[in-house]
């Protein structure tokens, strides 16, 4: 692959890859490092991939594998307890998402266990289908659906808790001032 092709592929994917790396790792520097490493692997091995349509999947899969190689955690169990995978959620969840920024979303994602966080981030970042995510992570499609469902529940709960944590001190301050 020539330099212009490499540059074109970098331009097409480096932002989304960095965001994915940011959700996986715990610092901007580590995310940038993972993103660079992924493209260096592409530069050295990616020319073997002839189908351009598979470039994106290759990059995300490679980045994830690089992350696992460096940062695999021993714990494989979720931190949050959930009553059900498709439990009803309060209608305010949508408005919660409207009032937050990207950094808050990434911070919330980082609180979610890796097995849920990875498919969830792929789902949101590049709108990969559950079948594509299953192929990239080498897990059954039904497992991806289940993890997406539970991952969303966790994300919503965390975002709601974040919002409530901000609102309650403000209320207390307002009440204290009124006395």
């Amino acid at each position, binding site marked *: *692959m020539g*330099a212009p092709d*490499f*540059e074109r592929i*970098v*331009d097409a994917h*480096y*932002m989304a890859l*960095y*965001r994915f790396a*940011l*959700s996986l790792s715990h610092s*901007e520097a580590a995310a*940038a490092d993972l*993103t*660079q490493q992924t*493209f*260096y*692997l*592409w*530069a*050295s*091995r990616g*020319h*073997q991939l002839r189908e351009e349509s598979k470039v994106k999947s290759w990059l995300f899969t490679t980045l994830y594998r690089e992350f696992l190689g460096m940062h695999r955690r021993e714990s494989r169990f979720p931190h949050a307890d959930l009553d059900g*995978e*498709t439990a*009803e*959620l309060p*209608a305010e*969840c*949508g408005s919660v*998402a*409207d009032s*937050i*920024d*990207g*950094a*808050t*979303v*990434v911070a919330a994602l980082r609180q979610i266990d890796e097995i849920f966080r990875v498919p969830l*981030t792929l*789902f*949101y*970042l590049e*709108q*990969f*289908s*559950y*079948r594509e995510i299953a192929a990239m992570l080498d897990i059954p499609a039904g497992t*991806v*659906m*289940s993890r*997406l*469902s539970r991952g*969303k529940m966790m*994300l*919503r709960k965390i975002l709601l808790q974040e919002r409530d944590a901000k609102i309650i001190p403000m209320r207390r301050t307002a009440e204290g001032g009124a006395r």
Partner: protein
Amino acid sequence: MTHKEAMFLLGSCPPGGSNELEFAEALDLASRDPELNAWFEEQRRFDAAIAARLASIQPPAALRARILAGGRVSRPVHWYSPQRLWAVAAMVLLFAGAGLWYSVEGRRNSGWNSEVLATLGDLVSGRENFDVRSPDVARLQQWLRGNGSPSAADLPARVRGLASLGCKTLSWNGHPISIICFHGPGGELVHLAMVERDALASPPPEGHPVFGARDGWHMASWSQGNMAMMLVTRGPEERLRQLLAAGLGLHRGPQAVLGLLVPIAAAQIDID
């Protein structure tokens, strides 16, 4: 499909929509169930908001330049050697001969297969809708015949026993094609496509199905009287074999295709 099952499926539907056929039934249910529809709309709003927030994150300013600079010094590792190239060339010639034989046969009929699969994808993504919805396949067959679209008088016995979702008509090279969608026995969707047998240069064999797979679909094709038929599913091929195990239906001759001169109706009709 229950309310909970639909929620589980729709939770995996990407914010920008999906071509996956598995969502068709759940989307159909949502369109008829206000509570489920409200839940799904809220899901989509949440998903879209999260996707937008993530997309707003900007990488460090120097990252692109660092990647490009590092890429220039990451030289490709060449795997090939003259011996390997000769071996690959020999393999290519071997497979090219076999592939050519298959492609000549396959290409003649691939057009209508492709058209059917593309339409099924459009139905799922919402770009297309059923012409008619009904859980009663007999009513769908009656509607197809009345509109000049292919409709076999006798469906495979086990297919006939399935609850239908709806039907869709399309035109391929001037030939009408009918598709009836069913709830499959394993929870997946099953689709029966029908086209006039004479429309195909090389119709599938009479009386016994030929099985194949393409792009994640499993298909079984056969001819029945004046009709070429194809049963399609995203489920396992075994499901098709089970559905066709009790027979393909009776051959009743040319009268199986009715009213082919009547233009295809495109109106949305609900006969329930």
